[in-house]
C-alpha cells in the first residue's frame, strides 16, 4: 500500500522541525524546505502529543510567512498626529536609526529616574520572552512587563486553581475517556490540543458519550451526542444543576469523595445535610457545598435559567457520572471568560472532583515535569535607578480593590491586560511615556478597542515589533519588522496533550526574505548594545556575561548567536546527554535541533490525590484556598470579602463565595433597547486573528459552521430575522451600548432566538489587503467584535470578559 510520509523526498527538499503557534495548542511541526523556500508543513513525526498531526492552521502559515503585506524594513512615523483617521506617513529607516531612537527615548527615562514609565507589552510569546519581557525590562528598571494572558484565559485557570490548586490548562486523557462534557470548549476547532482532538475524535465518539455546552452549534457540537445550546453566560446553572443531580442520585465517586458513614444518601432536594454524617476522602467540603450552593438547584430550576430542558440536564449529568471516573469535564474559556465566570469555572471543574475524574485515567489531568532551566539571575546588574524603578506598582492596576487578579492565591499577582489602556489614559498609577509592544495587537484583540486607540494616541512614544502593519502599528512611532515565529526565529514553548508534556523548538528554517529581527532576543540585544554605546552598559553586560554558549562557554558575538545561546541555556537539561530526565533522552544540541521536540513520559495518574497543594491538601469543593485569597485581598483594602465581591460585580455574599455556585449572567445594555444577547466564538482557521490576511483563511471561512467564505457574518436565528425583516446577505449594523460595527446577516438555526453569534477574527481595518476590504481607506472586511464588546472583566482573575453574552445589542438593517 501507499506510504503516508514523503521523507524519501520527491521534491528534493528537507523537513526541518519547528513550532506552530497559530493557536495555543503549540504544535511541534516540520517544514519542508526546497531551495531555501518553505513549501509545506506537517506535524512533527516525533511528537507523542500529536503524533504527526496538524490542523488546517499549520498549512496556512505558509501564507503568513510569505505575506506580501509584511513589513520589510524598520519604519518611522512622520505624521506626529495619532489616531485611526490619521495617516502615520511611515517612511523606511535603517535598523541602526530605529534602535538609536528607541535607546535615546529609553535612556531619557533613566536620566529622569522614571524607568517605571516604560512598558513592554507582550502578546503571543515563546519562552524567550524571559529576555525582552523579563530580564530586559527589569534590568532597565521597569516593573512593567505586561502580558496578554488576561485576554486569553485566566478565568479558566481560576476554576482549576481554587478547586485543586492547579493554575494551568489541563490535559485531558481522550484515549481512555468514557464521557466528555465540554464547557464552551471546541477542541475540534480551537484551543487547545486541536490536532490530537481531531485525530482522536472518531474513537472518542465510538467509546464515549460527548455533550457540548455552547450557545452555538460549534464544530465540536456538530460532532457530539448531545448539544446543550445554553443561553450565553448561564453555563453555571447547568454545572450547578449537574452537581445537584450527581449528589441527589448518589452518583458521586465514593473512592474519591467518600460517602455517608452509614451509606445512606441524605442529599435530598431542599434538605440541609449534617456534615458529621459524611466522611470525605480526597475532597473538602462536599456537604458544605450541597448546603450552600446545590440543595435547591434542581434541573427544573436550571432549565429556566439556561434554556436547556430539565430532562436533558438530568440525562447528561447522569450519563456523565455513571461513566465516571474515566470521564472529562472539559473547562474552557467559553464558559468562564464572563463577568461572573470565575465560579462557573470552579463549578465545571468541580464536576471532575465529584466523579473522581480529576488526575485520573480518562479524565482531567495535569502534566509531567518539563525540566527546563531558568536564565541566570539578574539582580547584580540592577543599578540605583533600576532598583528605584522596580519599586513601583505595576501599571495595570492589578491588586486594586476592583482588580483582585488572584493568580495562584495572591492578590494582584495576575495581569489585567485590558485595563492597561485605562491606566495609560488615567495616568493611574502614573504616566506611561515609552512602550514596546511585540507579537500583539491590543487595539484589535482587546474588547473596548476605542480605549486602546485613545491610549496609544496619548502614549508619547510607542514601538511596535510586528510582522504586519496591524491596528496597533498605526499608532506607533517606530515599527520594527519581526521574524515570523515558525520559520525565522529561535524559541521554545511548553505544552501538553495525549498525556505527554513536551517542549517544542522554534528555529529559523529559512532565510528571511526581508530585514527582520527576532522580537524576543535580537531586538533587546540591539537596544542594549546601543545603550552601552551611550554609556549605560548593564543590559549588554548581562547578555554577554550570563548568556554564554553552555557547550563552549563562548560569549555571544551578535544578536543571532545570543538568540541561539539563550535557547540552548533554557533547554540544556533536555538535550545535554549528561543530564538524566524523565522523558526522551536526546544526544546533544545538534540532535535536538534535528528532532525539534522533547516528550515527557506518559502522565502518572492520581499523583496529586494525596496532596493537591490546596490549603487543605484536598480537592476543595469548599475552597479554603479561595477564602484565604479573598480574605487577604479584602484586608489589603481594609474591607470585608462581601464588599470585594460587590465591587467585582458578583452576587454572592457570605459563605457562598467559597463554593462553586450559580451567578446570574451579567450583561451590558437594557433589554428594551438592546433586545439581543451577543456572543462571539473562535474560528478553526484563526491564527489568533493573524490569519485573516491569508487567502486560504478567507476562501475556507465557511468551515466554521454557519459562516461564509470571504465574509464576516452575524448568525441570527431565522425567527428573529423574520421579525426584523432581515435576510441572509443583508448588510446590518450591530450596536451595543459601547460601539457599533457593520457586517452581513446570516440566518442560521445553529443559534437560539434572542441571541446573535459572531466569530472573532475578521474586521481588520489594518493588517493587510486581504484582511481589509480596502486597506488604504481603512475599510474592514466585516467588523471586529471587540469594537462592540464592552471592556469588562472577570475581576477575581483579571480576565477580560469576552464571552457569556457580556453585552446586549440591537440590529439595524443598513
Amino acid at each position, binding site marked *: *500500500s*501507499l*506510504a*503516508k*510520509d*514523503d521523507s524519501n523526498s*520527491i*521534491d528534493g527538499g528537507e523537513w526541518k522541525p519547528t513550532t506552530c503557534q497559530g493557536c495555543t495548542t503549540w504544535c511541534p511541526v516540520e517544514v519542508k524546505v*526546497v*531551495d531555501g*523556500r518553505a*513549501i*509545506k508543513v*506537517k506535524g512533527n513525526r516525533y511528537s507523542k502529543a500529536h503524533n504527526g*498531526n*496538524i490542523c488546517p492552521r*499549520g*498549512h496556512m502559515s*505558509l*501564507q503568513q510567512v*510569505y505575506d*506580501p*503585506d*509584511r*513589513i*520589510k*524594513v524598520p*519604519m518611522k512615523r512622520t505624521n506626529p498626529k495619532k489616531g485611526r483617521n490619521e495617516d502615520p506617513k*511611515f517612511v*523606511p529607516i535603517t535598523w541602526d536609526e530605529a534602535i538609536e531612537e528607541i535607546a535615546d527615548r529609553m535612556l531619557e527615562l533613566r536620566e529622569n529616574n522614571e524607568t517605571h514609565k516604560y512598558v513592554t507589552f507582550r502578546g503571543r510569546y515563546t519562552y524567550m520572552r524571559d529576555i525582552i519581557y523579563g530580564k530586559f525590562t527589569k534590568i532597565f528598571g521597569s516593573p512593567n512587563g505586561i502580558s496578554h494572558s488576561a485576554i486569553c484565559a485566566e478565568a479558566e485557570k481560576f476554576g482549576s486553581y481554587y478547586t485543586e490548586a492547579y493554575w494551568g490548562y489541563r490535559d485531558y486523557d481522550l484515549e481512555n475517556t468514557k464521557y466528555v462534557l465540554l464547557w464552551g470548549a471546541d477542541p475540534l476547532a480551537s484551543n487547545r490540543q486541536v490536532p490530537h482532538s*481531531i*485525530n482522536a475524535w*472518531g474513537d472518542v*465518539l*465510538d467509546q464515549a458519550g460527548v455533550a457540548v455546552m455552547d450557545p452555538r*452549534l460549534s*464544530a465540536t457540537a*456538530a*460532532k*457530539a*451526542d448531545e*448539544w446543550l445550546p445554553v443561553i450565553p453566560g448561564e453555563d453555571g446553572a447547568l454545572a450547578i444543576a449537574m452537581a445537584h443531580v450527581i449528589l441527589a442520585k448518589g452518583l458521586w465517586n465514593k473512592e474519591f469523595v467518600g460517602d455517608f458513614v452509614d451509606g445512606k444518601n441524605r442529599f435530598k432536594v431542599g434538605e440541609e445535610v449534617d456534615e458529621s454524617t459524611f466522611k470525605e476522602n480526597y475532597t473538602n467540603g462536599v456537604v458544605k457545598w450541597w448546603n450552600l450552593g446545590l440543595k435547591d438547584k434542581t434541573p427544573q430550576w436550571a432549565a429556566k435559567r439556561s434554556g436547556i430542558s430539565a430532562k436533558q440536564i438530568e440525562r447528561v449529568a447522569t450519563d456523565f457520572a455513571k461513566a465516571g471516573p474515566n470521564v472529562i469535564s472539559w473547562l474552557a474559556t467559553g464558559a468562564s471568560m464572563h463577568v461572573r465566570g470565575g465560579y462557573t469555572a470552579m463549578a465545571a471543574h468541580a464536576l471532575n472532583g465529584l466523579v473522581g475524574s480529576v488526575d485520573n485515567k480518562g479524565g482531567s489531568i495535569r502534566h509531567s515535569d518539563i525540566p527546563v532551566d531558568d536564565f541566570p539571575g539578574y539582580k547584580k546588574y540592577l543599578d540605583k535607578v533600576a532598583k528605584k524603578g522596580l519599586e513601583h506598582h505595576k501599571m495595570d492596576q492589578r491588586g486594586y480593590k476592583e482588580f483582585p487578579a488572584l493568580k495562584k492565591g495572591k492578590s494582584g499577582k495576575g495581569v489585567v491586560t485590558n485595563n492597561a489602556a485605562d491606566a495609560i489614559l488615567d495616568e493611574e498609577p502614573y504616566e506611561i511615556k515609552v512602550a514596546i509592544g511585540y507579537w500583539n495587537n491590543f487595539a484589535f484583540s482587546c474588547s473596548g478597542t476605542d480605549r486602546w486607540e485613545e491610549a496609544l494616541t496619548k502614549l508619547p512614544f510607542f514601538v511596535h515589533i510586528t510582522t504586519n*502593519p496591524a491596528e496597533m502599528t498605526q499608532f506607533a512611532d517606530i515599527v520594527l519588522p519581526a521574524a515570523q515565529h515558525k520559520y525565522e526565529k529561535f524559541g521554545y514553548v511548553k505544552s501538553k496533550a495525549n498525556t505527554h508534556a513536551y517542549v517544542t523548538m522554534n528555529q529559523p528554517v529559512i532565510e528571511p526574505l*526581508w530585514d527582520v529581527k527576532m522580537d524576543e532576543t535580537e531586538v533587546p540585544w540591539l537596544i542594549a548594545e546601543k545603550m552601552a554605546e551611550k554609556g549605560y552598559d548593564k543590559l549588554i553586560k548581562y547578555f554577554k556575561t550570563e548568556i554564554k554558549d553552555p557547550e563552549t562557554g563562548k560569549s555571544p558575538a551578535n544578536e543571532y548567536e545570543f538568540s541561539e545561546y539563550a535557547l540552548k541555556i533554557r533547554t540544556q537539561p533536555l538535550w545535554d546527554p549528561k543530564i538524566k530526565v524523565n522523558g526522551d533522552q536526546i544526544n546533544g544540541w545538534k540532535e535536538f535541533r534535528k528532532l525539534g521536540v522533547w516528550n515527557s513520559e506518559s502522565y502518572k495518574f492520581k499523583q496529586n490525590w494525596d496532596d493537591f497543594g490546596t490549603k487543605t491538601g484536598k480537592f476543595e469543593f469548599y475552597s479554603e484556598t479561595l477564602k484565604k485569597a479573598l480574605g487577604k485581598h479584602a484586608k489589603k483594602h481594609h474591607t470585608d470579602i462581601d464588599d470585594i465581591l460587590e465591587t467585582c460585580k458578583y452576587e454572592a455574599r457570605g459563605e457562598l463565595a467559597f463554593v462553586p455556585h450559580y451567578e446570574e449572567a451579567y450583561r451590558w445594555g437594557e433589554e428594551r433597547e438592546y433586545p439581543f444577547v451577543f456572543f462571539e466564538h473562535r474560528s*478553526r*482557521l484563526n491564527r489568533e486573528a493573524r490569519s485573516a490576511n491569508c*487567502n*486560504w483563511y478567507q*476562501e*475556507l471561512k465557511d*468551515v466554521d*459552521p454557519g459562516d461564509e467564505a470571504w465574509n464576516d457574518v452575524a448568525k441570527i436565528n431565522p425567527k428573529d430575522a423574520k421579525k426584523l425583516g432581515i435576510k441572509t446577505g443583508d448588510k446590518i449594523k450591530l450596536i451595543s451600548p459601547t460601539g457599533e460595527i457593520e457586517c452581513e446577516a446570516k440566518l*442560521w*438555526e*445553529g*443559534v*437560539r*432566538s434572542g441571541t446573535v453569534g459572531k466569530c472573532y477574527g475578521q474586521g481588520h481595518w489594518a493588517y493587510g*489587503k486581504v484582511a481589509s476590504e480596502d*486597506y488604504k481607506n481603512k475599510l474592514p472586511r466585516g467588523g471586529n467584535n471587540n469594537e462592540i464588546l464592552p471592556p469588562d472583566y472577570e475581576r477575581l482573575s483579571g480576565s477580560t470578559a469576552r464571552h457569556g453574552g457580556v453585552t446586549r445589542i440591537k440590529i439595524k438593517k443598513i
Partner: protein
Amino acid sequence: MAKYVMVIDLHKCAGCGACVISCKNENNVQEGFYWGHYTHKTVGKFPNVNYEFIPTLCNHCDNAPCVEVCPVGAMHKDEDGTGMVLHDPDKCIGCKRCQKADPYGVINFNKEKAHPFWRDNEKIIPKVTSSGKEVTKAVGEIPPYYNPARANTTDRDKTYDGVRRKGVVEKCLLCDHRVKEGLKPYCVTACPADARVIGNLDDNNSEANKLLKKYKSFRLKESLGTEPRVYYIRDFNSQK
C-alpha cells in the same frame, strides 16, 4: 497497477478543511480554484439541528462524463489502469466541454494567467511593505511555496504544469505524481482525522475494501451511473 478508490469516513471527518488547504498547497492551486472542496448544510430547527459536512474531490468515475465529451482526449483515464482520471494540458484546447459535462463541479478553467495574487504589484505602504510580485521574485517561484513535485515527478510524463497555463482546465488528479511514486495523495496524508483511505479495489485485503465491507457506503449522485471511485462511509453527525 492497482485500481484506486478513496474511502472517506465521515464519522472521523472533523470538517476542518485541512484536506482543501493541503491540496491547494500540494498542487499549487490558485485562489478561487478548488481541486478538493466540501459541501455542508445545516438542517432542522433550533435546537434540533444537524450540521452535515462532506469533503469532495474529483470522483475519478469509471464512466467519466468529462472523459467522454473531451474531443481531443486531453481528459482521459490513466493508461496504467489505476482508474484515475488524468488530464493532458498539451492536448487540452480549453473548450470547457468537460466542465459542462462534469456533474460534480470539480473542474476549473484557466481563463487568465494563474495566480494573479502573486503577480500583483500593489504595496500597501510604499517602500516598506512588499507585493505578491516582489515576494515571488525574491523566492523565484509562483506561488512562493510552489511545490515542484507536482510538475517533476511521475513516469506518466514529466510535463504536467506545476502551475497551469492559460486556456486549459485543471482538476484533482488524485495526486498521481505522488501515487505513482508510492505515496498517498496529499489530502490523505494531511488529514489530521485519518478520515481518508486510498486503496486497491482489486485487493480484498486493502484497508479500503475492508472498510467498504464493514460499513454501508454511498457515492455522490450514484443515480447518474458515473460510477464514482470516491466512497463515503458512516455519518458526519452522531447526535442522538
